[in-house]
């Protein structure tokens, strides 16, 4: 049958990353889609993009359409965890707990390694 008009039972609108790009070169589009759609399939609206690999200046570039984001969140869209983390880092939403926890763990590990290094060397 025709794949243009697909109906689902249940499901909800999600704001998540759709992976594009090539092998070993990802590129994410921040997209509002139904939760039951394929990851890279038909979406409702594109709300931005993210390049996860750092550019020549060492920056990871992302673009966001905050106006439409507000609209979709007002219509009751859910967020996937990576999208939440990105928006937390951008400042639109509060920081995600796991970002803070990850930073703490990294700091602790670096401190431990720093302690272990002079002990060995």
């Amino acid at each position, binding site marked *: 049958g025709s794949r243009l008009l697909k109906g689902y039972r249940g499901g909800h609108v999600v704001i998540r990353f759709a992976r594009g790009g090539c092998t070993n070169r990802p590129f994410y589009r921040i997209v509002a889609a139904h939760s039951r759609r394929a990851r890279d399939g038909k979406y409702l609206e594109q709300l931005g993009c993210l390049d996860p690999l750092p550019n020549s200046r060492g920056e990871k570039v992302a673009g966001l359409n905050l106006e439409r984001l507000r609209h979709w969140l007002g219509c*009751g869209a859910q967020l996937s965890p990576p999208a939440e983390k990105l928006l937390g880092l951008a400042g639109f939403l509060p920081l*995600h707990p796991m970002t803070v*926890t990850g930073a703490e763990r990294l700091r602790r590990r670096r401190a431990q390694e720093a302690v272990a290094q002079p002990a060995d060397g």
Partner: protein
Amino acid sequence: PCWGPRLVPTRGRKTRYDPPAKSKASRLKVPPPVDPEELVVITERYRQHRLVLGALRAEFRAEVLQKKREALLTQEDSARLLQEHQRLMAWNEEENARQRARREERLRKEEEEQRRQKLKAAETQARKREAFLKEREKEVLRLQEEAKTFITLENLDARIEECLDNPRNYNFAIDKEGRIVKRTMLS
């Protein structure tokens, strides 16, 4: 299922019904270690985060609704729609008033009817009661009258004498025209 060291999830090349490889026979799968204090801290942070997120969502929801309402108001023919709406509301109000009047009329009539019925019922009841009482009174009077002609222990002898002194003859014949004939062979 609770993943113990025995159950291993198969993925990729093998289906779920293929047995695990021999090299993995002694594999003990344990979940990542959890630091309880860190867990407590993380739970608290998640709670706060979700609180803020909920508040933000409510904010955005209100915004969207406001925009929708504004768009509805500032339509091209909003004045005409408003007028139409008001006209229809007025007509509805009129209809309601009319129906209310009719309903009240009907209720009033029914109430009247009920009251009349009750009165009539009470009247008939009273009349029946009175008739009954009168009947009973008549009975009582009749009995009182008859009691004067009863035979008691005192009258017994006198009455017996009386009966014996006045013999009564009940023999009579009657023909088809209704004439009574008292003359018999016995008398």
